[in-house]
């Protein structure tokens, strides 16, 4: 692999990694929001 090809390969790999990280972060937000909507005020209702 030539130098410029390697650089491009690394750049694309970095971009893919960032995209995966963003997708995972979005998934966290989705589950967080869904929990709030589903449970509402009951989120804090945890009898010991």
């Amino acid at each position, binding site marked *: 692999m030539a130098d410029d*090809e390697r650089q*491009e390969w690394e750049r*694309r790999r970095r*971009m*893919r990694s960032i995209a995966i990280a963003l997708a995972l972060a979005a998934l966290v937000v*989705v589950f967080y929001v*869904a929990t709030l*909507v589903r449970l509402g005020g009951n989120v804090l209702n945890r009898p010991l």
Partner: protein
Amino acid sequence: MGNMAEIGISDSRIHSAQAVGGSIGDFVALMKPRVMSLVVFTALVGIMLAPEPPHPALAVIALLCIAVGAGASGALNMVRCRHRCVHAAHREPAHSPGFVTPEEALTFGTVLAIGSVATLALIVNWVAGALLALTIAFYILVYTMWLKRRTPQNIVIGGAAGAFPPMIGWAVSTGSIGTESIMLFLIIFMWTPPHFWALALYRMRDYERAGVPMLPVVAGTDETRKQIVIYSALLVPLGLWPAFMGLAGGLYAVVSIVLGAVFLAFALAVYHHREGRQADYAARRLFAFSIFYLFGLFAMLLLERGIDRLVD
């Protein structure tokens, strides 16, 4: 699922050579964003038509899952197609010259499919999740792997995959499959054959080259024109059905009659003009109008429901 828009020819984004790897744009393009937009729209109509739509945040999450599921179907279909498929009408705009290997596309599609189904099932309900799983499985196993290259009935039966989204939407809201959602399913199901056969008439050579046994390639253009008229004649009354079932009102009925009459007229023009530029024009016009027709019907359903809610 992507059936509404797939069928296109070779995809440069999937390549056996490793090259420099796929860019983000390549992966996004694999998901066929234009197909996703139609899927999301019909699913939204399914969600909103239900008597009690879910919390807006849950509706957005459900639509996201359905969109990602549709994208997964598109990516997995491309793994199967590689260089042999046809990019016909819904060709996505050219992006970058990067390559996605078949293995990458397979992994990408599988992760998205499992992720979208699991998220929809866990957050919204199991019926919606199961329907999304069925849609993806139907599209990949029944349409892409089984029917597409074996029978001219490929898009008739495979069309079911593209007809499921409003049903999933309805299940998102109700947790069940009602007659109303079956009605929406049937409209898209009956719409698919004339839509794709109109396209196949003017892209016949492409399908022939790609080895896809579309109806004009196998049974000839005369038979295809006849079938287009038959399916169009069945579609138009189906398009009116929601008004009789109480799912839509007078405004929808009027729009459905007008659009249906134009659809039939264009289908008859395809039947009558069999040669030369006029034939080509008639097929292209029917194809373009068929998209407008489906969009128009579903937009009216959405609009009427919105007006009803405002008045209430």
